[in-house]
């Protein structure tokens, strides 16, 4: 026997063993997934998701039909007015000691809600999101926000679903060129009193607007991505309060009242009471025009330095009754087919979380061919994004805002 050949043989064996070891996670995942698929058949998934938009409701209804046909899974949309109600229910179940058979199987969530659920161990503890077959169509290097929800690592506890970005809408009949920086906005507010406002904190769009101004006015934004330090808070937020102090007397109603949420502010824009509305979905203005809720002359814009962008996710609570079927649903909703349909403004218009270079030519062509709403910015215009600060800043800013502007002093 040729010793060389034997060595070669051993080498090949070692090599193939190493190859197998390298490859085995994927192999195991696929096997796991088919087991999951098997278990999921016949299960019912109670999907708790905001139900205030009939387009979104229709999209979820479509997904439910597909799930029933393909995998024998019953998908029930539990329509919520706010996510907090579902979080309360999960919390009450935890308090009652219900560790299995919970009432929520899948939850539409992100940011502070996710951080709170994760911190209090209210989510399914085993990471699952990154072993879904559809995960391979995403690229966390290109879009870090799919693994970093408001600077909090997702750790595979939630599966990305869609993207959102802070955008401003204005009526081009009333406003020729909108202000595109925090400084220009302040100058605009002071020269045009009574025509700008923002949703009243603790509304999340209102707080996001404050975070946007905070990032734009801050000298150094790095500390914003760590948990808030009381010692640093005053120094970091001083420019924000200076900005607000200068504009507040010139806001809509002199800053003595605010719209309760962004749909109300959109209504104010429609009624011509204010010049600018704020939304957290680039397609919001286009959809509102289509529904006849905004004049056709409305257009959208973002600030020159970019605006806050984030990703919204699907999470499985710790005591979900049908965690297997919930994963199948999350996997389907992340698939190119479902994401393409979701990105279509005629269906919903929610930007995809998938990476184009990971898709097949055919799927990529599908995304390229999507029409854009009349008031929706192009992907290129929306490319300038700012990352969400750590969620702890939100609460700190809210409390200080309340102290300064809402205590009636």
């Amino acid at each position, binding site marked *: 026997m040729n010793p060389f050949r034997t060595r070669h043989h051993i080498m090949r064996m070692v090599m193939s063993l190493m190859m197998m070891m390298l490859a085995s996670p994927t192999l195991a995942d696929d096997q796991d997934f088919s087991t999951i698929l098997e278990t999921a058949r016949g299960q019912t998934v*109670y999907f*708790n998701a*905001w*139900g*205030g*938009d*009939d387009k979104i409701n229709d999209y979820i209804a479509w997904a439910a039909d597909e799930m029933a046909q393909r995998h024998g899974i019953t998908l029930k949309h*539990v*329509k*919520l*007015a*706010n996510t*907090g*109600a579902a*979080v*309360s*229910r999960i*919390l*009450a*179940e935890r*308090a*009652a*000691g219900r560790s299995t*058979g919970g*009432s*929520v199987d899948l939850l539409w969530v992100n*940011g*502070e*809600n996710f*951080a*709170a659920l994760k911190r*209090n161990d209210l989510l399914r503890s085993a990471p699952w999101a990154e072993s879904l077959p559809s995960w391979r169509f995403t690229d966390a290097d290109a879009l870090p926000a799919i693994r970093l929800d408001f600077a909090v690592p997702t750790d595979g506890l939630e599966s990305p679903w869609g993207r959102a970005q802070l955008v401003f809408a204005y009526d081009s009949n009333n406003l020729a060129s909108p202000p595109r920086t925090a400084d220009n906005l302040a100058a605009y507010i002071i020269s045009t*009193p009574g025509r700008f406002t923002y949703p*009243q904190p*603790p509304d999340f769009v209102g707080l996001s607007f404050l975070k946007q101004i905070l990032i734009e006015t801050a000298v150094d934004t790095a500390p914003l991505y760590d948990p808030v330090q009381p010692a640093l808070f005053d120094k970091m937020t001083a420019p924000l309060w200076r900005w607000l102090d200068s504009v507040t007397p010139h806001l809509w*109603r002199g800053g*003595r*009242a*605010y719209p*309760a949420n*962004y749909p*109300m502010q959109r*209504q*104010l824009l429609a*009624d*011509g*009471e204010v010049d600018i509305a704020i939304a957290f979905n680039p397609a919001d203005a286009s959809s509102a025009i289509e*529904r*006849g*809720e905004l*004049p056709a002359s409305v257009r959208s814009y973002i600030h020159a330095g970019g605006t806050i962008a984030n990703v919204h996710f699907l999470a499985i609570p710790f005591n979900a009754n049908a965690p297997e079927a919930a994963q199948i649903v999350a996997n389907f909703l992340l698939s190119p087919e479902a994401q393409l349909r979701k990105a279509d403004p005629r269906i919903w218009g929610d930007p995809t979380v998938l990476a184009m270079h990971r898709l097949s030519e055919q799927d990529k062509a599908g995304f390229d061919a999507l029409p854009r709403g009349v008031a929706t910015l192009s992907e290129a215009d929306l490319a300038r994004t700012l990352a969400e600060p750590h*969620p702890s800043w939100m*609460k700190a800013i809210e*409390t200080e805002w*309340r*102290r300064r502007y*809402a*205590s*009636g*002093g």
Partner: protein
Amino acid sequence: MVCILALATALPVIAGIVGVTAPAIGLFPPLGFVSPSLDPATVFLATPGLARAVLISLGTGLSATSLAVLFSFALLVTFEGAHRSRWLRRLAGPLIAVPYSTVAIGVLFLLAPSGWLMRLVSPGLTGFDRPPLWALVPDGSGAVLCLGLLVKEVPFLVLVSLAALATLPVRRLLATGMSLGYGRTASWLHLVLPLVYRRIRLPVFAVLVFSLSVVDMPRLLGPMLPPPLAVLIVEGFEDTELAARLPASFGALLQILMTGAALVIWRIGEWLCGAALARLRRGGFRLATLCAYVRALAACATLPIIIGCTGLVAAALWSVAGPWFFPATLPDALTWRFWMRTDSLAPALMASIVIAAVASLVAVALALLAIELTRPRGRAGVFWQVWIFAPILLPQAGFVPGLQMVLTMTWLEGTWLAMIWMHVLFILPYAWLILAPAAASLDRRHGQVAASLGAGAWRRYRCVTLPMLAPAIITALFVGTSVSVALYLPSLFAGAGRITTMTLEAVALASGGSRAMAGVATMLQLLIPMLAFAALQTVWHLRYGRFAGMRAGGLH
């Protein structure tokens, strides 16, 4: 049997109360808070603007309630018995069933600088092609909030007053007054209204409690900086930071304290008014000019009713409106698009009808049973009243999680039983406060007459007591249906996504902020109380239409 019933109502209520009290003193195991502490109290008491928020709550609550009583009495005196009263009575019922948020949106849509009133005169008279910068709403004083509250509360008090009037010999009392040389209005003031007030005192307390705890309205109408206490509490419970529930729970206890204080203030006011009226009576003043004042007051009192109706018309219009921008007075186009989508709501509609009907009937039956059981013991009834009212005294966001725990531990959430059980708990206080005074004012001698004719206890109850209570029972059933249809949080928790009601669908739809969807949602929510109204009316006329003395007791 009685024990089981008592347990079925007491257990969740106690759980609800514990569910609020424990976090308030720092105990909330699911989040890892296991030792008592004063932190929740300290944190909540440090809320910026808290003192002002409490003052605003008390101010708007007390003024809205006193105005509601004044207005409803003025309407009663002016219109009762007169032929033109029919439209007023017919409007009271539906207005009770309109959701608070719709009333708020309606008021806003009417009074805002871009609102309907301004659109009527713009740009023609004003030259405005954009809304002006000055505004009535939202306001910081709470005046508009009071107006909004009156839209709901005046009809409610008119309705319960009418039920109370039906049990009084109004004509004889008025005749007595007038034979002594007093005018009609003065006779009302001296002889009838004190008796009516005594019978509607509990509903008036409920109105006061509700005015202090309303959340939807101040969010739209102001004051906002700071908002009333109830809004601060709800914001705490809705906070994404889960630990914010602990201070919010302390806030809920503070809310109870504040409600108690408001009730004490109200009692003092009652006593002062009583003393003033007694002086007037003893002085023998003829009060000849009173009539003019009452007329003026009644004219003012129609304002909230008109606003409420306009809000409804506006909601109906939005539900079919296409684009509709300032300064257009009417929508540019009409569309049925929003209504086309409602066919999928049939199961929710059926569920709501079943729940509202069963829960109202059960709650009314329970209240009647409780009244019969507590009557012989006299004062013992007070104890049972305290916890029966807990569901409407405590902020729902704090109270409902405790209820949810009972359902979860009994594996009942998501079942019809749980849903109806929860609804009964929230209807029961209203059923009690409408039925208890009516039962207390019954002339027991009718029963004695029946007994002397040989009727047994059950027969006496069925043939004498129940028909005499019928006006109050009908009112309680209708109010119960309206309450059931409006319950959002308890339905969400008890249904656990397994059972969907109309309100769950409607509130979710309206959260998108479109006026059109809010309009559709309002119309859908109104549907069930309207059906109940029609059904109860029909039953009433079939059963009692031939008794002249009872004709006045229906819902009209």
